[in-house]
């Protein structure tokens, strides 16, 4: 309960702070519209030569693209602002102040900041999913929606874990501002269904760096495609990834020695 109150307070503070940058919403919305229009244009080019891509129809690929942007939006709204701050603070030594507060350091480090204007990607991603589903004339029962939600949460847990693990490296290497680029590198392969990749790359993207669970699997569940792997694996891997990342964070934290003397 107390934890929820703290997170709510951060969220409220973030919204108050961000209302100072109202024009950012327009700017971000504009950028999101451009990005998504270009991506959909790309799909149109690809599907002008084929009616299905590794078994995916245009509308299904659109839903997948929507999931990609939705996750991207969540990352930029809620994950990257807080965790990027950790990197700066550890370098400057001001991470001390996080440790001194009577709140678990991991919670504080991962929920302090919200850049609410990036919600534009979440909204537009959702819109693309909706358009794809309407054009598919998909029958979304309550059960399917619930499974989709569960798989999405699992996917976002995986994203958070990867991001947290990369951030934790700061305790060893200090200068890691660009390390989260590694995430984006792999994540960009998730704009298309993982089935298009050759076997070795598909395995890498399913089991080592599980991008497949972030975009392909959620899109499969809601568009009624035969799932790539057992659906229940997604939340399970999400939970395991969270545990592993939290453990790694604690190991990293024990190495923190502040800066200067």
């Amino acid at each position, binding site marked *: 309960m107390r934890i929820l109150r703290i997170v709510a307070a951060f969220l409220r503070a973030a919204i108050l702070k961000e209302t100072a940058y109202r024009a950012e919403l327009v700017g971000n919305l504009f950028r999101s519209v*451009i990005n998504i229009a270009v991506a959909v244009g*790309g799909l149109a*080019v*690809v599907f002008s*030569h084929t009616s299905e*891509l*590794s078994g995916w129809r245009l509308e299904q690929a659109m839903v997948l693209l929507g999931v990609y942007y939705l996750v991207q939006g969540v990352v930029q709204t809620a994950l990257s602002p807080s965790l990027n701050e950790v990197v700066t603070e550890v370098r400057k030594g001001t991470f001390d102040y996080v440790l001194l507060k009577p709140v678990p350091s991991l919670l504080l480090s991962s929920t302090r900041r919200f850049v609410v204007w990036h919600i534009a990607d979440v909204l537009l991603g959702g819109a693309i999913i909706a358009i794809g589903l309407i054009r598919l004339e998909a029958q979304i029962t309550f059960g399917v929606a619930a499974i989709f939600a569960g798989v999405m949460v699992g996917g976002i847990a995986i994203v958070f874990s990867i991001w947290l693990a990369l951030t934790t490296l700061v305790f060893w290497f200090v200068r890691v501002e660009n390390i989260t680029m590694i995430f984006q*590198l792999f994540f960009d392969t998730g704009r*298309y269904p993982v089935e*298009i990749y050759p076997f070795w790359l598909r395995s890498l993207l399913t089991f080592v760096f599980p991008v497949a669970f972030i975009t392909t699997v959620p899109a499969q569940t809601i568009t009624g495609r035969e799932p790539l792997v057992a659906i229940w694996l997604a939340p399970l891997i999400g939970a395991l990834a969270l545990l592993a990342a939290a453990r790694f964070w604690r190991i990293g934290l024990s190495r923190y020695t502040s800066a200067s003397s």
Partner: protein
Amino acid sequence: MIVRRATLAGALALTRAEVADMFQYRVVLFLYSLWEVVHPIVYLAVWGAIAGEGDVGGLRLSDFAAYYLTFMLVSHVTAAIEIYTFGPMIQQGELSPHLLRPMNPVWVAAARNISYKSVSMLLLIPVWIGLVIILRPAYSVTAGSVVLFLVALVIAALLSFLVGTTFALLAFWTTRSFSFWEIWMGLTFLLGGQVAPVELLPGFVQNLATALPMRYTLGFPIEVLLNRLDPGELALGFALQFAWLFAAALIVRAVWRAGIRQYSAVGA
């Protein structure tokens, strides 16, 4: 365009200094170059999945491999980074000291561009050779196509630099020059030969891509190298590439002159 000897010597010295500076950021540069590897691989996978054992518009899997492997190198050589290097200089008032030097600050941007590419190319090449071994592209190049490719590549790099500089110079007027740049990048993605080789674009979009400048910063050199164009298309392509280069040079000049007149540094 006449360039004075002293300016050339200055540009050379600047480039040497920038290369030395750039070596500090090896790891970051390596990550950036990996970026240029990932995107072509995604689209190679897309087209490979569609082609399967057959072909798409006459292109087989090994042709797509040749196209997108060449793409990796070309997109690296022609990448415009001025929005990240030159734009912030204007925005943060760091342009002022450069204005006192007896040469145009655009040379600073050029020196940084060349040094970035030469250092990160050293890091990219080993990755690229590994990919060539894995993907086994079908390169059907001729001596003539290699020579024409090099010409097209140099013009593409110059054109791209001028376009990138133009967008960076918008920082004289707006803090949102990056949004305009993203529109350009989006158009390059669609029409420049990234999402698909231009020859695979549907009807009127292909004509649009042939007329607009994006293809001449990216896709055109690749098509030249891989002998995808007949003599007529080749001649038209080079004519348009030169025309756009000339136009871009005029635009950069005009934008620079207008911008510098109303430049005022930030800070006390």
